[in-house]
């Protein structure tokens, strides 16, 4: 049964239609990828799901509960947690204090994850920042900030993690390391919904791809089928005239 069900989701900013009625369901035990050209509404979709923006119309159901337009903090507490494209942290605080803030909001009753990152130090170890705890978050290089962003989201103990371009701006090896980490999450009982531009990486990682263009869903399915879909090829490569 899908954990997150979106129906007819629409969001406009003035005259700009960012989401033009999207229907989508996402399971909480898989890695689902969302791809699409710039401006196709991927980040807006995340923002509307997680309560950063209120939708113009449509409905978001999470674990059978209507969460449309609920405040962001409340949605996070229900286990639907997202990261940000801009690698956000609490820049003036130490890395350990950063994760401590998230861990103090951990939702209980999750045996596996408690063993993996029940304490701030375990969590830092899990994301590979074990020896960076005393550093000021804002002084860290970009790659480490991305890891910290994932750590902050994991600290809350999500059931479904929405990752907004976690590999953007990372070198290939850094991106591979991060994706290896993401790949382990479903085994720990955390679903992942991932936005990224790297087709090769996405098709290797995701069980299912969703393609957005101009705020509508144009294709959905296993990566191989989706990437051979003529409509998707047209969006990315242009049509034969």
């Amino acid at each position, binding site marked *: 049964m899908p954990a997150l069900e979106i129906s007819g989701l629409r969001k406009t900013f003035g005259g700009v239609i960012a989401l033009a009625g999207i229907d989508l369901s996402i399971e909480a035990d898989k890695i689902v990828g969302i791809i699409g050209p710039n401006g196709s509404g991927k980040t807006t979709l995340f923002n509307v799901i997680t309560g950063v923006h209120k939708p113009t119309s449509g409905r978001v159901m999470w674990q059978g509960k209507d969460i449309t337009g609920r405040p962001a*903090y409340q949605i996070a507490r229900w286990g639907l947690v997202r990261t*940000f494209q801009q690698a*956000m942290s609490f820049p003036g605080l130490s890395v350990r204090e950063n994760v401590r803030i998230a861990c103090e*909001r951990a939702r209980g009753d999750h045996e596996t994850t408690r063993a993996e990152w029940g304490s701030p130090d375990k969590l830092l170890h899990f994301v590979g920042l074990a*020896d*960076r705890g*005393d550093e000021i978050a804002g002084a860290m290089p970009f790659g480490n900030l991305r890891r910290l962003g994932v750590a902050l989201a994991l600290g809350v103990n999500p059931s479904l993690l929405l990752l907004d371009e976690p590999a953007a701006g990372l070198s290939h090896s850094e991106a591979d390391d991060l994706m290896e980490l993401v790949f382990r999450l479903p*085994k720990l009982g955390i679903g992942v919904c991932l936005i990224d531009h790297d087709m090769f990486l996405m098709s290797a990682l995701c069980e299912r791809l969703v393609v957005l263009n101009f705020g509508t869903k144009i294709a959905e399915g296993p990566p191989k089928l989706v990437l051979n879909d003529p409509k998707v090829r047209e969006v990315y490569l242009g049509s034969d005239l």
Partner: protein
Amino acid sequence: MKDSPSKPNAPIGPAQDAAPDRPEVVRRAGKTHHGGRSTLAEIVTAVVVAGFLVGFPSMNPGYRFLSLAITTGFTAVALYGLGFQFGQAGIMSVGHAALMGIGAYTAGILAGKLGIGFWVALPCSALVSAVVAGLVGLPSLRVSGQHYIIITFCFCALLNIALTNGGQFTGGATGLDVGSIGSAFGLNFNKLLNTYYLVVVVLIICLLATHLLVNSSYGRTLRALRENETLARAVGINTNLHKIGALMVSGAFAGVAGILQAYYLRHISPSLYGPFPSLYLALMVMLGGSRLLYGPLAGAVIVSFLPEILNLNPIDSRIAYGVALLAVILLLPGGVSAGCLNIYRWLTSKRRP
């Protein structure tokens, strides 16, 4: 699910390279927010500060300096509130004296109209000020930074007008007479020395409360919303609730300071709680530094005592304050307390090979 969990805690990716050379300040940064256990240096500082506060009268300060010390003491109580809301939650106010005024007038009205004395009025003042601080804080949910600062200033000016035109209830421009604390615990608080000790006890309680709050998960929550509100919400922090909460804590401190001031002066009037005293409070917090435990106290002591010691007249001292504030903002953004801490760290790190 079926995969055997091989080395579940192995770090991802290549081993992190050894920490490269970076400035001392950055490497030791974890300690700036008094994270974790108390160190020996912290305990020594606490004992020295407490010893100085308790031992001050034995230095024969005379009537004038003892009065000044009392004023400094209850001002510092208010500053701990302002320092908490600014240093932890990042919300500045330039109308903080208004909240002291709410506390003072609560005490004055309770004493004058209902005959309620100091000890019962003390929690009432704290509570009323906290509630008012929460209400005044409601706009902070919509505007932040300089915009909210302007609102606090307006509130302060408005309260002044209201108190001046309050007729019998607030005593108008003349203000209200407040009685004396009288005697309690076998101490006669009509004696200046005993009033001093009362203020010191309250101040030490405030210091302890601040220390505990700052190091609690609540303090961390406020720092989170200070540092990045969007991210704070994304990890499940109800930022609106905690902003108002921080302002209410701050308001309670101001209320206590207000009632101490009212019973020390025995007469209160609107001009005590106008924009000018508010600006002084903001100056003290900036000068002393709001993020370290002794910052507000340092700010209060410097601003109250220095003009007295240097024999500056009121006009000159205002110019000096202005210059000092500019100098601190440009040279010591964390205030005098952070400057001292950096010097201490520099000295201790030099000694180590």
